[in-house]
């Protein structure tokens, strides 16, 4: 919501071992009418790595605990090692663990509780993580 750029079509990848979360998020995304979002879904980190390697994913919503992995500290770096440079958001029913304080050290951009997600949150996330933070005068002009 803090952007001047035109809304664009976004491809978001949800990585969650519970397929019901895919349906729930799909419903919430439909209410975020300000944004056109295509939601892809995969249930494990191995499959997710293959998808991001194939390209075309703009943003990842990553469930904190993917069976059989431990938590995002084990999974998020795998996406970065695969060359994914889009935003990664950790979604979890419980983000109170102290280790969440270190999320940026693992290449994660943001964290959010599943019960906090609604249409206005999705609109903010899209606006925040797709906006041009650097002015035209700061394009990669020195190259």
């Amino acid at each position: 919501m803090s952007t001047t750029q035109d809304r664009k079509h976004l491809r978001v990848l949800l990585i969650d071992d519970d397929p019901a979360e895919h349906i729930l998020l799909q419903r919430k995304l439909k209410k975020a009418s300000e944004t056109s979002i295509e939601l892809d879904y995969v249930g494990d980190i191995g499959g997710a790595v293959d998808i991001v390697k194939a390209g075309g994913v703009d943003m990842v919503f990553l469930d904190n605990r993917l069976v059989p992995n431990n938590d995002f500290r084990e999974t998020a770096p795998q996406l970065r090692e695969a060359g994914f440079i889009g935003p990664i958001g950790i979604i979890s029913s419980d983000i109170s663990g102290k280790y969440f304080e270190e999320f940026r050290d693992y290449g994660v951009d943001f964290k959010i509780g599943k019960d906090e997600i609604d249409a206005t949150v999705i609109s903010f996330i899209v606006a925040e993580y797709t906006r041009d933070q650097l002015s035209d005068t700061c394009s990669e002009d020195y190259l």
Partner: protein
Amino acid sequence: MLVTETALHLGSELERAVNRMDFFRLFKSLAGSNGFSYFGITEIGGEEHGLNFQHVHALHNFPVAWFADPKEQVIGTADPVAQYLQKASAPHLMDIRQASSDVLLSSGADSAVIVPLHAATGKRYGLIMVGGDASEDHRALALIALDAALIFQRYFEVILSLDSISGLSDREIQIVRWTSEGKTSAEIAIILGLSEHTVNSYIAAVLRKLHVVNRAQMVASAIRSGLIA
């Protein structure tokens, strides 16, 4: 108005907030805990300026359709909310139907809570909450103002104060150094295992700290200052 002791913004999340997304969540929680669906916070500019919700430090969940120009996202100087924030220092429950605030009336609500906030640097900010059933309750208004001040103080410490700190963090120096090597943001993101958005966030922060406008100036300034060899 209801303030629950279990509200997210009153718990450990306040101490753990580290980026704009976290503060969006905290202010949204404050609004939600008090029965409001929408909130917006932004810097109060000069009298000739309205309230710009595209400001680099603005946070809000107002639907863009509320604004006369969805791309500019400004509450104009003539709007009673902007006028109140220009002159006031106390929290206020405003009857937006009587005062006729064009932007906030889009919420369908009759009233809004407006909380002026002050950064340690002297800059003034305004928090607006709307989209709920606000009532004339001094105690509730005081609690909202207190919670808003606590979140804003943390927002200042973590985000706003960075603009006035002259030194660069280790991560910022790392990114300036890679930029001086000719790496693009995308390349630096891959090297450091970050998102391109995060890299650009660091670069934007460095530009503000060094008072420069592009990458070439940033590198030159960092070399002159001895920040990088």
